[in-house]
């Protein structure tokens, strides 16, 4: 059964037609038209669907959309402010931390949440925070280097 329900996505309040069966990822991609979040494995392993719910990274593919009613959702579309890339995005470009790009939205959100709770992470902490974001291209080193660089660019 479909019904209009209120969501807060990237700071905007919006009513969306919700089917109880929708995952949060389906709501974002198919009902809100925000296709930056990707579906990889569909079972919580790969992290391509990572979004922030009340600031915490979650796998949108294994969360029901109805669970997110009334909570603050941030997707990759909400990261750059006024067309200016955020420091994690910029560092990933500068240091070659992205290739095919499929995992990148999830990586950006996991790294952003990490820097939010821990502005000076060690390399181990970065690798740990990104353990749930699989990348088949980069071999991870450049992603980790980019997050190290982004942490050093506070306020940039």
């Amino acid at each position: 059964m479909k019904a209009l329900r209120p969501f807060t996505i990237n700071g905007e309040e919006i009513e969306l037609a919700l089917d109880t069966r929708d995952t949060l990822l389906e709501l974002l991609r198919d009902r809100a038209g925000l296709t930056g979040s990707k579906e990889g494995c569909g079972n919580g392993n790969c992290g391509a669907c990572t979004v922030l719910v009340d600031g915490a990274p979650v796998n949108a593919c294994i969360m029901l959309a109805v669970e997110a009613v009334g909570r603050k959702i941030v997707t990759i579309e909400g990261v750059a402010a006024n067309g200016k890339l955020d420091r994690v995005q910029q560092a990933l470009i500068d240091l070659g931390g992205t290739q095919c790009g499929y995992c990148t939205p999830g990586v950006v959100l996991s790294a952003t949440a990490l820097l939010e709770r821990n502005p000076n992470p060690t390399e181990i902490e970065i690798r740990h925070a990104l353990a749930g974001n699989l990348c088949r291209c980069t071999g991870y080193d450049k992603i980790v280097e980019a997050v190290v660089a982004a942490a050093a660019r506070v306020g940039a």
Partner: protein
Amino acid sequence: MNEFDYTAPATVEEAVAQLGTGARVLAGGTDLIVQMREGRRQVGHVVDLKRIAELTEVASTPDGGVAIGAALNVTALSAHPAMAAYPALVESGRMIGSYQIQNRASIGGNVCNAAPSADAVPALICLGARAVVAGPGGRRDEPVEALFAGPGRTTLGPRDVLVSLRLPPAAKRSAAAYLRFTPRREMDIAVAGVGAWLRLDERGAVAEARLTLAAVGPTPIRAAQAERLLIGEKPSAKLVAEAAALAARDARPISDTRGSAEYRRELVKTLAARAVAACCARLGNPLETA
């Protein structure tokens, strides 16, 4: 997924009243939603527990212990100051999947999903956790280890809700540890796991011991012979090695793609010795290694 109703009751009593044929409670969904999406579980009514205050908090109990809300996510649980007294459980919770998973996954879900490899279960059993369960007949409380009936099966009835996991206060001169073996360092499922808990007497001899084996039987296994061997003795590397060999005999592993039964038994021996040694180190009595 098939069509289902969704409700998010505000109290345990409402949740119990809403449960019935075809209904299933939802905590973090990191097991349930995966199973529903893969068609492994048909659910007609999802009862979300996360609006119930009692299920999403850590409360102190009159005996000085804690009651962990069954649906509280592992990230919030680990950050709670009262959990500093139970490092083995916090460490176990933080082995579950990634940050994304831990921001959703609950200890109650880990117990009720009843995977033999569930990482939080050995520490709960070793710490003497009791499960507070609400059902149509009211509330009861039972040892966590009594909840397991087989892989994926608990003794809970279809209208029972696990409310909280109660830990007694951490006893003086006691310590616990949980270790698992996974081929990958992160995001992997235990091939074998061992939890240990020791309480020493004033002389430094073992007064009480608990060893719990995971992923080497249909349900978690208490290694009773090993526990008996340790009691009354001062821990030494030799004694711990003997106890670990007995623990391996209590394992009832199967062979599957993750490892053969023989390999799992070897793992239990190694992990049991290390888990007991970790308890000794936590107690300030590191074992001398031969």
